[in-house]
């Protein structure tokens, strides 16, 4: 039964994300509640080519699924989150969209040494 559910979820993700899609995992500090993150998610959704936006509040990560031609820069994201009242840290870009399915849970992250945490070093 669990395998069927996972298969359906995978098919669903595949249905909304094409092979050319990319995912941005954006690290943002200072977001503490669903109400707080909503304006940032809406701002990202307004960007042309962005299909879906999600978040993990515990790790301070916002996931963006977008067309392959969508390109973010540190300066662009820093300004976007500054306008929202939060502190942009870094992003990672990957092929395909899993919307955070590969992301570690907060408990897992506590075991990761500091220097394994990929941070572009962009302060807000």
């Amino acid at each position, binding site marked *: 039964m669990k395998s069927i559910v996972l298969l359906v979820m995978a098919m669903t993700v595949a249905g909304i994300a094409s092979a050319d899609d990319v995912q941005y995992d954006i690290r943002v500090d200072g977001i503490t509640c*669903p109400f707080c993150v909503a304006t940032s998610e809406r701002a990202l959704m307004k960007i042309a080519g962005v299909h879906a936006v999600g978040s993990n509040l515990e790790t301070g990560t916002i996931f963006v699924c977008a067309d392959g031609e969508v390109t973010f820069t540190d300066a662009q994201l820093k300004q976007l989150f*500054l306008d929202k*009242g939060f502190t942009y840290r870094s992003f990672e870009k990957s092929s395909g969209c899993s919307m955070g399915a590969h992301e570690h849970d907060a408990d897992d992250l506590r075991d990761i040494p500091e220097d394994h945490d990929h941070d572009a070093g962009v302060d807000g």
Partner: protein
Amino acid sequence: MNETLFWRPSILAMSLLLTLWVVIPASWAAPIATNTALPISNDAIIVRAQLVATHAADSLGGLNRHVDRFEARTVLGYGLTSKLAIFGMLPVVNIERTIGDIRTTDSGLGDAALFARYELLRSDKPGRTFRIAPYAGLRFPTGKEGTTGDGSLDAFAGLIATLASTQWVLDTQLRHDFNAESNGFERGDATRFDVSFQYRWSPAKVVRETPAFVYGVLELSANYSERNRISGVTDPNSGGFLLYLTPGLQYAARRWIVDFGVKIPVLSDLNGTALEPDYSILTSIRVNF
């Protein structure tokens, strides 16, 4: 009996009640009856509709006094920048007063307020933040003088500090109201200190795409008011100290927050024969646009 004369001491007591209740803030963010330093995004709008029902009753020398005040507040917050936000609050008030066999009802606009809040300090970490924000504003005499408003243009200023994580939020506020005189009546200046603690009850663990938080809320509010002055004479039955406790619940979703709380005076040291509030019931919804 000359009704005007009969009501005169009562009006003083009511003025004190007005003083105490007007300083209950129209809060516009996370807590129920306190302010927060959490941000309003640049160009974002938050609208809050809040209902406050307050009851007070006692017996003074065999004369029963009874006041029920119902207030519907509309609060609009707008982010001019990510650090600077402006807020407007417009209350509609209904007050029923009973003293002995005499009962009066007043209703209409209360005193509107307009103020600005600026984020002075921000320290962000993953899933947590610390912010300090001073604010200052004016309260306008939009209410009916002597009933739903006090007729004067008053100023207020405060400082908010907020420490928040995904598990809990702590808001503290220090505020002072500089009240002016109008037609011989000058409400005493007021100072208050608030602490609000919100603890996430549900979900037990934050996971990806958590749609909403349920917080248990506990707020403590210490209020001190100086005595009112009428035609330059200090009113001995006004001013004093009140300590309130407000337990409550809050549901915070992505676009809206609803909350409910009961504000109870737990320590009272009011001057003279001023009528003490028994409790206030507060509920609100706020929407993020």
